[in-house]
């Protein structure tokens, strides 16, 4: 439990706006980054990030001290993102395959280390961002919350209101799918270079 957060929330609950501003400052970048990856564009991400903190503020009195702050914050952000995605696309097939026509191939042969090691990290990240954006939202949120936002299985389960076992399954499947995409990308890249 983050004691700094608890202290700030305690002050904010008493009406201390400076303490609340500190929380916004502390988590602003992360929440914006998370929402950006969830909804795919900066404009919506900015709106939702603001809305997230406004909701935190108007629900200050419902926050119980001792309750972890970070999962609560991400839960509000996640719900807002999911609501927006639903608005854009009212029907989401929850158990659709991760990448439409490609089943997971756990046994795929691996490439040895090659020139792809020098592949620009930035380029890799951009490619990966694209692939993450193509994941179904409920896989995307799990993978983002775990990597880059440092939330535990339990915390993610709390945020998404699903059992820990579901989180584990989704993480495994999403990571495998993305990893295979990276491996695939690398072999294409190597083929082009030959």
């Amino acid at each position, binding site marked *: 439990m983050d004691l700094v957060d608890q202290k700030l929330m305690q002050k904010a609950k008493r009406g201390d706006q400076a303490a609340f501003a500190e929380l916004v400052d502390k988590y602003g970048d992360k929440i914006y980054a998370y929402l950006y990856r969830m909804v795919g564009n900066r404009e919506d991400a900015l709106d939702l990030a603001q809305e997230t903190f406004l909701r935190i503020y108007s629900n200050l009195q419902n926050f119980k001290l001792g309750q972890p702050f970070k999962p609560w914050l991400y839960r509000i952000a996640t719900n807002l993102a999911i609501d927006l995605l639903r608005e854009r696309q009212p029907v989401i097939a929850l158990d659709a395959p991760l990448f439409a026509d490609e089943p997971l191939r756990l046994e795929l042969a*691996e490439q040895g280390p090659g020139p792809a090691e020098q592949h620009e990290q930035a380029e890799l990240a951009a490619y990966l961002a694209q692939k993450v954006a193509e994941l179904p939202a409920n896989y995307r949120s799990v993978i983002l919350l775990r990597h880059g936002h440092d939330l535990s299985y339990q915390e993610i389960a709390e945020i998404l209101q699903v059992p820990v076992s579901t989180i584990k399954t989704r993480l495994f499947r999403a990571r495998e799918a993305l990893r295979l995409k990276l491996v695939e990308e690398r072999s294409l890249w190597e083929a082009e270079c030959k």
Partner: protein
Amino acid sequence: MNCQDARRLLHHVLDDDITLPAKRQLESHLQACSSCRNVESSLDRLTTALEQLADVSVPQGFTAHVMQQLQPVRTYTSFFSRMRGVCAAALLFLLLATPVFVWSTLSSPQLVADDRQVIVQEGNRFIVPYGEVVKGDVIIYKGILEIQGEVQGSIKTVDASIEVGPNGSHSGVLRRVDASPKAKLAVALAELWENVKCLLTGND
């Protein structure tokens, strides 16, 4: 250990969700199996790149912009923290100048709440009507607080009682205080503040 098990465990390692014996077994498998070592390194590349996806900065001025949109919340305690500032001297002066007011305040039931306007007063009875929601904190001095609607904030009673109707609810903290001189003074101060505010803003 076969490759399929090893690959599953590689994911568990990423989440610190692995026992020590299993980790040892995995390590010895990795030493012997180059294809699983490749999986390990591609997973490392993946997680590093995923972490980079979180390196996005919110536009400048974000915090200030959020803060501008906040509705001011006045709570019992924030009133006191404000007291420490410039208002303290002015209020103290007013308080000293109005002993009669304080006396009359203390002799009749009082209610202080952020959502005062939704609460109906009938004699010594303060009623939260059915269907109304009081989000902020409530302090009641003498008299009865009748909850037919909902009170989400905390309630502090000073020499007062609470009645909850069949559909009424209260989800906040409840504190009962004897009418010590300090509590009386707190109520008087809060009430005084309400009145000063009404005078200043011109609304009731």
